[in-house]
């Protein structure tokens, strides 16, 4: 049975080397930090070490490719993962409900999964494999998808519910992704939240999105939209959220704006 972490961790941001000095200067304003799992495998820089030893961390992977039906998880990846997840102040780790690698080719994008029972079972088995090796909680994140894979047989919501139930893991709910999908695929995001197994939601992601050629795109380059913050408020009324990460990967020049956003979100979540 999935057991949620006990404590409220707070609100943090994702690590980017471009803003490492700002992060170190502002550690008192950041409750925890999300680090790309694969980066931590090899990055030996002093500044990253400083952050990972002084702040609680959560690890967020990009390359597990849980949705690749024909491929298993690489053994050396599992070894590296165990080392970094084993760090004392690592709270939990996560990856995406997506495919990022097919036939040994990295796609460098999150390809949506085929929403079928078979793929859900494959993903769940891979998650179970991870959870056997690492005792920290594992969370799965919903992605932004611009198209649905051919041959899908159920909705994204049913698909997520099915995997987390089978794998018995947690959910990292990216509310920005949810909002984008609800606009691009025209559904009600509040209804999505109502029907999600909320007892499994541990962490929330927020980020900015922008219109590019009439499509709402997950850019991580601007402030979180008010519509997304409203969804966060709605979720907060329903459940206790353990941690919120504001993701920003582009236009990082105004760090204070990011810190203002952290403060604003803290008010909503606490």
């Amino acid at each position, binding site marked *: 049975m999935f057991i949620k972490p006990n404590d409220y961790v707070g609100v943090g941001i994702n690590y980017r*080397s471009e803003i490492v000095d700002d992060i170190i200067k502002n550690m008192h304003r950041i409750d925890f930090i999300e680090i790309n799992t694969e980066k931590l*495998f*090899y*990055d*030996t*820089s*002093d*500044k*990253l070490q400083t952050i990972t030893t002084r702040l609680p961390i959560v690890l967020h992977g990009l390359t597990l490719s849980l*949705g*690749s*039906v*024909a491929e298993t998880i690489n053994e050396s990846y599992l070894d590296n993962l165990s080392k970094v997840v084993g760090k004392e102040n690592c709270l939990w780790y996560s990856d995406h409900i997506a*495919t990022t690698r*097919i*036939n*040994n*080719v*990295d*796609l*460098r*994008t999150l*390809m949506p999964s*085929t929403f079928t029972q*078979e793929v859900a079972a494959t993903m769940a088995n891979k998650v179970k494999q991870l959870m056997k090796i690492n005792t920290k909680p594992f969370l799965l994140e919903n992605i932004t998808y*611009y*198209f*649905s*894979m*051919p*041959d899908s047989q159920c909705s994204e919501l049913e698909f997520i519910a099915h995997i987390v139930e089978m794998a018995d893991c947690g959910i990292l709910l990216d509310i920005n992704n949810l909002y984008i999908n609800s606009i691009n695929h025209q559904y009600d995001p509040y209804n999505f939240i109502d029907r999600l197994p909320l007892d499994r939601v541990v962490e929330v992601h927020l980020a900015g999105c922008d219109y*590019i*050629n009439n*499509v709402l*795109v997950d850019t991580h380059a601007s402030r979180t939209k008010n519509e997304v913050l409203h969804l966060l408020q709605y979720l907060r009324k329903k459940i206790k959220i353990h941690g919120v990460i504001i993701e920003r990967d*582009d236009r990082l020049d105004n760090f204070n704006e990011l810190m203002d956003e952290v403060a604003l979100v803290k008010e909503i979540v606490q």
Partner: protein
Amino acid sequence: MKTCYVITLAVLERRNNPGGGVFRVINKYMITKYDTLQQVVSCLLIHSTWIKKIIANFDLIERNFNLRDTDKIALREFFKIDHEKLLIHAQLSEEKRWREFLTTSHYVKLFFGIDKLKRYWTEYLTSFHFKEGIPSTPFNEAVCFLEFMEKKSNALEKKIIEYEITKNRLVGFNFYHDQISSIKRYKIAMEDVFSHELFLNPSLVIKKFKLHTLQLLKNIDLSIAQSLEGKNDNNIYLGFYKNCRTGSIKTIAINKHILKLLIYMKNKQQLYVILQLLEDNKKWSFQKGTDFINYLHQENVIFIVKK
């Protein structure tokens, strides 16, 4: 969908042998390997050029992939309804790769200019075959794209490209945490001489450049017009390496003193041996020798490690 192997034909052959006719299965199984929808869509997702080609002519799918009939129908239906969404995703992904490239190659960006680079980039993207993978990281991609550009460039452009390729190749260099944790953090003193050894930074690569190429790089940084008047044809050896403490890629001019030290070291050497060699061959005092080693250690070109 799993890749499927289907035995399509098992041939039974009547053998004529003196003892009468028997049937036996001969070893002529014909095995068909089907591609999956996931494989096909993943190939398309990384090549927007090919999505456009398929939109114009769906038969290209059949020429490049072996799909089961049911999958072919599903894919044709998907293309009728969702081809634009697939194209948008692929283009967004390529745009992201382009932006990532721009962050990797400072001098090439400034020297060639965005417009010219973007033209090369478009050519580069269309040079991929349908089933060809893309480089796995932005830095690998930078190397690939720069090599593509190199073929179309003049001698001076080639040198600037070579500089960027060398830097980008090093980004992917990984130090082992165990290796790094044993590196001394402070300067060496007299008492360290017999208890420490020197390691060459394992990422160090030395390349020969014309002095005027380096002057040009400096000019690019200072936004000075790129004139080659009075160019200096002398060669200079430049060391490229990854700083294990910052993760950044650094360069250092390899002068005769550094070169000599690197020869003495041969990757790894006892500290006292090096100091002795510097004293014997260069007549350097202990102080001068340790200052020199401390400087290179500080710069992360060599590592001082406790034995």
